[in-house]
């Protein structure tokens, strides 16, 4: 009995010393070179996996049904002209009488100009695809919407564009100048577009249109002195 307890006493005292040695030699410098190597052997692949492979895996990429050039359509000589850039945008992406926003124009809106499937207005084959497969078939174009928010989100364009006098670019960037719509990248986990879910994998934000998440809305509301608009129901439904 006696010696037993003594033994354990000593053991544990000695134990503590050994223990600290063990810890030091494993985790504290100076490391042996071999130690370093092993450390790096773990570190480097991890970094590659995290910064290079992960982003590729996380997002799927899809192309639009056919090419659409904002440049051509927004060219006053060929397509739509407006006194201001905003007016040009609003020509197709218009507000309805009840103030709701039409978003991506439906087939009906397009056929205002592209009224006859037989007679294309330009000479691009994409227009032919559009006329043959959609106008002729009277079928809506299944556009992939870059800035589609989740269903639980309510967003009022008129409140921002008309009352808030914001530019389209603030959130949508320079889509208006695009020759070709970029690929639609969807986050495999959250299911949302990279354009609202953060272009930068690390979550850094250089331009206002890099991201359209709740925090971004709130941030802007606050900056503009509209904290009151950070109440849940203002943007949720």
């Amino acid at each position, binding site marked *: 009995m006696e010696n037993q307890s003594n033994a354990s006493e000593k053991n544990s005292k000695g134990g503590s010393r050994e223990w600290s040695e063990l810890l030091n030699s494993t985790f504290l410098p100076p490391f042996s070179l071999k130690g370093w190597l092993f450390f790096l052997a*773990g570190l480097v692949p991890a970094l590659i996996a995290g910064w290079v492979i992960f982003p590729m895996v996380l997002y799927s990429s899809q192309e639009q049904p056919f090419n659409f050039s904002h440049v051509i359509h927004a060219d006053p000589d060929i397509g739509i002209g407006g006194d201001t850039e905003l007016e040009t945008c609003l020509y197709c992406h218009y507000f309805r009488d009840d103030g709701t926003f039409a978003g991506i124009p439906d087939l009906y809106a397009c056929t205002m100009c592209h009224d006859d499937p037989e007679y294309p207005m330009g000479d691009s084959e994409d227009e032919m695809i559009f006329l043959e497969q959609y106008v002729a078939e009277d079928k809506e174009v299944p556009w992939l919407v870059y800035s589609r928010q989740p269903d639980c989100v309510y967003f009022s364009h008129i409140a921002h564009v008309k009352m808030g006098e914001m530019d389209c670019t603030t959130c949508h960037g320079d889509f208006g100048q695009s020759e070709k719509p970029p690929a639609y990248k969807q986050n495999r986990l959250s299911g949302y577009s990279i354009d609202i879910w953060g272009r930068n994998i690390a979550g850094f934000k250089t331009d206002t249109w890099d991201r359209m998440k709740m925090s971004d809305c709130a941030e802007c509301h606050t900056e503009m002195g509209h904290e009151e608009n950070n109440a849940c129901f203002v943007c949720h439904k």
Partner: protein
Amino acid sequence: MEITRRNFIQLLAGGAAGIHITPVPWKMMDDIAIWTQNWPWVPVPERGRFDHERSVCSLCPGGCGIEVRKVADRAVKIEGREDFPVNNGGICPLGAGGLQLLYDETIRFTSPMKRVGPRGEGRFLPVSWSEAVGTLAERIQALRKDNRPEALAAVDGSRPGTASEGLVKRLLQAVGSPNCYSMPSIQNTYQTANLLMQGNAGPMAYDIENADFVLSFGCALIEGWGAPARVIGAWGRWREDSKAKGPKVVQVESRASNTASKSDAWIAARPGTEAALALGMAHVMISENLVDRSFLFNYTHGYEDWIDEEERPRKGFKTMVLESYSPDKVAGITGVAADRIIALAREFGKAGAPLALYGKGKGNLNGSLLECMAVQALNALKGGVNTPGGAVVQQGLPLAPWPDVETDPVARQGLYGGRLGTAGDSRLPFAESSIENMVEAVMQGGGASPVDTLLVFGANPVFTLPDGGAFRKALTRIPLIVSFSPYRDETAAMADLILPDHTALEKREEIVWPTGLQYPFLGLSKPVVRPVYDTRHMGDTVIAVAKKVGGPVADAFPWRRFEDALKARLKGLAEARGLTSWDGSKPVWKTFAEGRPVSPDYDSFDDLWKKLDSGGFWYEPTHDFHDLSTCFGTPSGKFEFACGRLEQAVKEAARGGDAKTLLHRMGIEARGDDAYMPHYETVLSADAGGDTLVLVPYEMFNHSTDWLPNPPFLTKTIFDNQLRRDESFAEVNPETAAGHHLKEGDRILIQSDAGEVKVRVHLFEGAMPGHIYLPLGFGHTAYGVYQKDKGVNAAKLVAGKKDPLTGRTVWWATSVRVKKT
């Protein structure tokens, strides 16, 4: 080199350190947070342009204006119209839940169908329209070939006076069958009462808004009677503030219904004794001289004793009432204290513009003719006939008649001899048609059923007829049953062929004169959404069938489509002086009372049609109250207390023989002159009383009780002491319950001569002692999960007397036995 455990740890440490300075953990955390919020199987409603369609609700005869909110051609909400004179913004539960009747595929027929498997099971296979129409047409041709066109019968739930009803009648007439049966509704009762006392076939038109004392005999005023949104709207105005004085409202009913409770006073008379109560009041008013003598003297017949053309002295209404309806006697009959009757009579008699309304619940089922007449007699006593705030005498809508049907010999013979049962014959001169009698005829004898082919339009008699299940039995003997119902209802389940109609929001439908409305009104619904399934307007189908049958039958339908037939009728309105819009500035009942003529806001029929199509209604906001000398179409040309037409009919039927036995067969026990005047006939069979209870089925406003399925949303408003899971509750007065040793929630068996049901007990002080109350509309055996097998159908228990003269079922009082289980 040898790898130590330590090196391994270092490797892991490196990896761990590394991954944490990449976005992986942080980005993942963020994305997973969102991932947990996505539930793939939760529907995400499609976005799109918001839109509105203005139309009229045709789910009930109420004629409410509705605005249907649409998103990208989907109807997402039904709301009331502010610019509509009848409901002025309001709507009812059924209307608000209407979309569930449009889109729920599980309760609808998605195309024409042919039955497979046994009747009642409801298993069908789709067939093409041409095949379906062909099958029916050939059958009809065959019947006509063997000279028995009368073997074609129809049960029609279309509302009286609509083009739909007209087309069905027309089809049968052209084919040669007199056996067209309309579903019972309070309208029949009103029209017959009007015919007998006022001599016109117009609807009952009550100027409620302008009355200063409203005495309702059983109308569920705020629970769906008449044009619900109209009455409830008025009710709301009356209760605006204790300062704003509405009329005093008194409800006569045996149960503390919402109407009874919310009224200013509640008179609890035994169900079926309302006539006696009215006559008891008459006794007081007459003896205390609280009557409008000049009206009675100038414009009524049979009030005072009179001498007929054979110089015989006849008893007048006054004498009859004074002899037989003293307050004390009436108190004995009704269970209402004599002094209460006297007080009520005095109030009614002293009021400036009192109005006595007659009804039974919502009015989906028939009422009692004699009761209706007795109540109308009260109005007459006060001169409240064709006056502002009274019962207005109206002649019906000025619709253009269709060309007469050219019948061929086959048809003529069928029409002459082929009448089934005895409706309209000597026994029931005033029952234009009686399903009860058709059922009787079909069940009679062991031979083949006299009905070979039965068409069912917009009705579900198997469920709604309060006949203790007799109709269903009759169906089993009918070789071919064709249902036009859009819904998988009980009757359709018995059918062999389904020619599905559109539902309300998909079709054109008229609302001809909302029940009880004081001014001429026609509502016209329009399709607010494209038909969701492969269905067809029942009118179009009827025309198609007729065309297919060919010959004179086809010729009877000189129209391509239902809409042409409809327009042909509506042309009549173009001639009349009505309006098709309402600016909302002044309620119609005000302009109506002022009686100023208006100039129509349309100049041609096309103009009218355009406006009807967009606005959805036509009305005449004015009325001539001064034509009392001309407005009555009775033999005497006056308002008749002693009904000449009735006496005439009985005389003819008796053919000089003894009227007594005939009257007895008509269900009238009263003797002598009383028989031809509004009087009281007892409704309960002799075995009532003792330890039996009187079963009173009641209709609910917040639950569909007629042929339409109940939208599940409405069940949210049902209390769990009316229905709990699958069990119905019967309301019993605590005192009565104690007598039968029943506690709240007990399971009991209710037995009548017709059948028995298992329900649970709910103790309710507002239930009349000795009576037991069961809600109607439950106990479906068809439709979808939300309607099927929920509770029991009170109609299946109804058994007992028939209403005198009309032969309709007395569904408001059946004596039953109650057993605890």
